[in-house]
């Protein structure tokens, strides 16, 4: 093919993983990440309808995570936006399936727990070997209106806990018996991430549509319990119920520690979810 030099402003490969071919600044060919394609195929096999724009968004997300060297550390990533349980239960990273049970509404763009019986079990066992090297979080389209608490056992060494009281907001922590107060003003929704590294050092990060903010590094023990419980943002193999939430969830993940990568990681999740759903992060 001959390209006339007078009407071609340039030729370059976009992105660090060759996401496409550009003429000037215009993308004329989309390359899809192979892991993204595998996920898309898996959810389409379960009945999900995935548009071209959504496929591009998923591919761009995976490519960006690989370019940032975060993809390997990502253990589980769920994007439950497809409106059907089978597709929503598929992990983008591992292609394994979790299990929804009880009262969970599968809407376009999120799943909504009914506040009493809804839950999700990632059926993951021992995906962490180090209790001081973990990252866990979720995207809340809406906050919980009722107090809830949940634990997630990723392995015998690590437990990830989330709790919320509408009057005091989200509390999130990693490691059994350790909680930290996350925010002091009512949580209106957004991306919530909790990260722990050796020390232990715990970071709590929230990203909303207005921006992102690391809100604390608190290690205060809130309360202790020997019972592993998770409801509804469960990523574990065996749990028992403490109390249920009624929030709308658009993403859920577990990873090794991302330390100082939380702003970039959560921004990538925001871009993915908003592009795929045409919704706006609160």
């Amino acid at each position: 093919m001959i390209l006339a030099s007078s009407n071609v402003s340039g030729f370059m490969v976009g992105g660090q993983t060759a996401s496409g071919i550009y003429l000037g600044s215009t993308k004329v060919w989309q390359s899809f990440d192979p892991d993204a394609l595998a996920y898309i195929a898996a959810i389409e096999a379960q009945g999900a309808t995935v548009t071209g724009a959504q496929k591009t968004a998923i591919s761009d997300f995976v490519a960006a995570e690989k370019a940032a060297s975060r993809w390997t550390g990502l253990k589980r990533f769920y994007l439950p936006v497809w409106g059907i349980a089978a597709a929503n239960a598929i992990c983008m990273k591992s292609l394994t399936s979790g299990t929804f049970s009880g009262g969970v509404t599968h809407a376009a763009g999120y799943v909504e727990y009914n506040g009493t019986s809804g839950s999700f079990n990632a059926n993951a066992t021992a995906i962490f070997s180090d209790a001081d090297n973990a990252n866990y979080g979720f995207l809340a389209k809406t906050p919980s209106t009722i107090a809830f608490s949940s634990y997630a056992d990723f392995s015998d060494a690590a437990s990830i806990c989330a709790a919320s009281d509408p009057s005091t907001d989200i509390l999130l922590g990693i490691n059994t018996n350790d909680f930290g107060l996350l925010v002091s003003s009512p949580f209106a929704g957004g991306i919530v991430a909790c990260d722990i590294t050796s020390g232990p050092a715990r970071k709590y990060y929230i990203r909303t549509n207005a921006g992102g903010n690391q809100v604390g590094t608190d290690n205060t023990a809130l309360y202790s319990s020997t019972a592993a419980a998770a409801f509804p943002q469960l990523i574990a193999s065996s749990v028992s119920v403490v109390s249920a939430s009624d929030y709308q969830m658009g993403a859920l993940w577990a990873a090794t520690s991302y330390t100082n990568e939380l702003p970039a990681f959560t921004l990538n999740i925001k871009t993915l979810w908003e592009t795929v759903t045409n919704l706006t992060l609160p």
Partner: protein
Amino acid sequence: MITGFITTPEIAEQVNAAVAQAFTVRNLPQFWALGSMPIYTGEHAGKVFLPADEQILNTPLRENPPVTPQDFPEFEQLVSLLGGLEARQQIDPAVLKDPVIPDPEPQPEPEPEPEQ
């Protein structure tokens, strides 16, 4: 109040095992379960609650257009084990809460980090 079946732990286990089998015989991962929740307090303490309101029984499971639990041939048989849909009862969700596990208590807020 929430709607579902109240049954013994043994029957609940049978029902959930049957639901799981409905997936395996179709070579599908079990992406959906009816679930079961122990009843800790009240007149049914010691029994198990299987949530089964209309929203749950009409969960869009897979395919396009999606099929629901009620579309599966096994559904009627499983429901009959529990006494039929008319055997569903409403209970206070408070009876499902394990009284041993404490509620989270609010703590003083930490000093916020500078915005990044």
